[in-house]
């Protein structure tokens, strides 16, 4: 039961992300699409370092280091 609740939580959050992006693409002047928001955020070097570090860590974590 706990497994279903945990997986359900992940699915709710991922679904919310998809709904947000779909809404943003329909009404971009209301909520900016992810690509436009990131383009704006990446103007800051600090945010670039943060985003690239997080992105790179996913590759490190899932493709090289032992995840389990």
């Amino acid at each position, binding site marked *: 039961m706990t497994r279903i609740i945990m997986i359900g939580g992940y699915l709710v959050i991922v679904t919310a992300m998809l709904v947000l992006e779909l809404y943003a693409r329909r009404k971009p002047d209301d909520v*900016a699409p992810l*690509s436009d*928001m990131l383009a704006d955020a990446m*103007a800051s*070097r600090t945010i670039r370092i943060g985003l690239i570090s997080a992105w*790179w860590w996913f590759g490190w974590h899932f*493709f*090289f*280091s032992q*995840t389990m």
Partner: protein
Amino acid sequence: MGRIIWKRSALLWLLALAIMAGFQWWRGARVDGLLFTLAVALVLVDLVKGSPVEPFIRRRILPRGVIVACAAIVGVILTVTPRNGWLDLVGVLIAGAGVMFLAWSPQPTRDVRPDAAVHRSSTIWALLAISLCVWEALALVISATSPLAATYALQAFPTVSVLLDPLLRSGVGQVFFVGCWLLTGLGLLRLWSRP
């Protein structure tokens, strides 16, 4: 050296990276902890001293075709060679170094959306990303502190890694996730909007 400007967004990112570093140390992933600690240090040095490596990599622009070819080579390395092998480490390091160097110089922003829309989007995305991190952290903390056997506890309170690991062990899954990861990296470079 000019006056340091501590923007709220920079401080929040610094905090997020510091929390990630602390969390990795807590769960015993020392290398991961070290990587995030280095990211924190990089941001701090950047904020306090200005970019120490900027003079060496400023305006480093490669043709789009070269970047795509490099990404394709890394993709082949990550999918063809055995997972968790040293060649995977080489591929991940090449990709990380490449994206970090190429994305270092500020890209001109397109500024095509109203500020309010961008702010709303970044706020909601941040909340969703934090929710995902908190949910994942909850699963890890409960499974790590549960009196149940470790394997059973991880299955009862699965982290994203536990759920994705079986997919990554299959060839198709590995190709899919490597592809997604590399495309995200190319997206961070804003490859498609480059001249």
